[in-house]
């Protein structure tokens, strides 16, 4: 019963703040409402038994990625005239929602035909079990992720480097 209540609170929070994110004109308002979405998604992970993912979602997404976005927005010192002029924003969003909703309806009706087991809240998804999986079966993708992060690091340094003129 408690899990049902928690699910509806978290789902409503994430849906409302995600909709608010695409409606706000100022990017800083969008980012702050995106943090609310990410935190409620972290709560949903905890509800599904992903205790490690709950921590990772808060530390990496809400702590690192969104903070980086906020830092860049404040660093760029965005004025009103720097924002794109979007006079038909609400019209676009309503029209696109009408266009996307049939596909979402098809997917939801497909999911409703599947018979799912109810939520069980016993001990599942402990951090030790996830770590064993990560370091035995998934060791090769894990190492490849480290190479990917290194490539991203080099790419950012090259992008941010001052262009040296030859003349």
């Amino acid at each position: 019963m408690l899990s049902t209540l928690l699910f509806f609170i978290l789902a409503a929070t994430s849906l409302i703040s995600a909709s608010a994110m695409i409606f706000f004109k100022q990017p800083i308002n969008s980012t702050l409402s995106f943090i609310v979405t990410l935190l409620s998604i972290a709560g949903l992970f905890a509800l599904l038994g992903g205790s490690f993912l709950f921590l990772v979602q808060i530390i990496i997404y809400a702590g690192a990625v969104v903070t980086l976005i906020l830092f860049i927005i404040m660093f760029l010192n965005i004025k009103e005239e720097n924002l794109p002029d979007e006079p038909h924003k609400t019209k676009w969003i309503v029209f696109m929602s009408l266009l996307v909703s049939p596909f979402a309806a098809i997917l939801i009706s497909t999911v409703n035909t599947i018979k799912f087991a109810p939520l069980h809240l016993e001990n599942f998804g402990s951090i030790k079990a996830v770590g064993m999986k990560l370091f035995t079966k998934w060791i090769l993708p894990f190492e490849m992720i480290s190479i990917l992060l290194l490539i991203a690091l080099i790419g950012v340094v090259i992008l941010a480097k001052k262009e040296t003129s030859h003349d």
Partner: protein
Amino acid sequence: MIDVGSFFILGILLFSIGIVGMISRRNIFVMYMSVELMLNAVNIILVALSHHYEDLNGQVMAIMIIAIAAAEASIFLALFVMLFKNARSLDANFFELLKQEKHND
């Protein structure tokens, strides 16, 4: 009572909101956050499947997606700083100005 299917429906709705934001907005920060929202929707569905089958591979996949999203964030934000220095605007229509100019040497 809720079941795992409720999480599927929530993931589908969040993914649809991400698509709508990606297509209908021209502010590059909002477009980028819509992409992140779509990745998060997929993460919810993966973790729900992992809970349904009582198999931890789905959670490990979600961790991989989060790591890739972190790498993506750094590249995106470096591109945004470059764009803002060149065009003084956050409009995605100016993104072609990032093309490298031809050097006369």
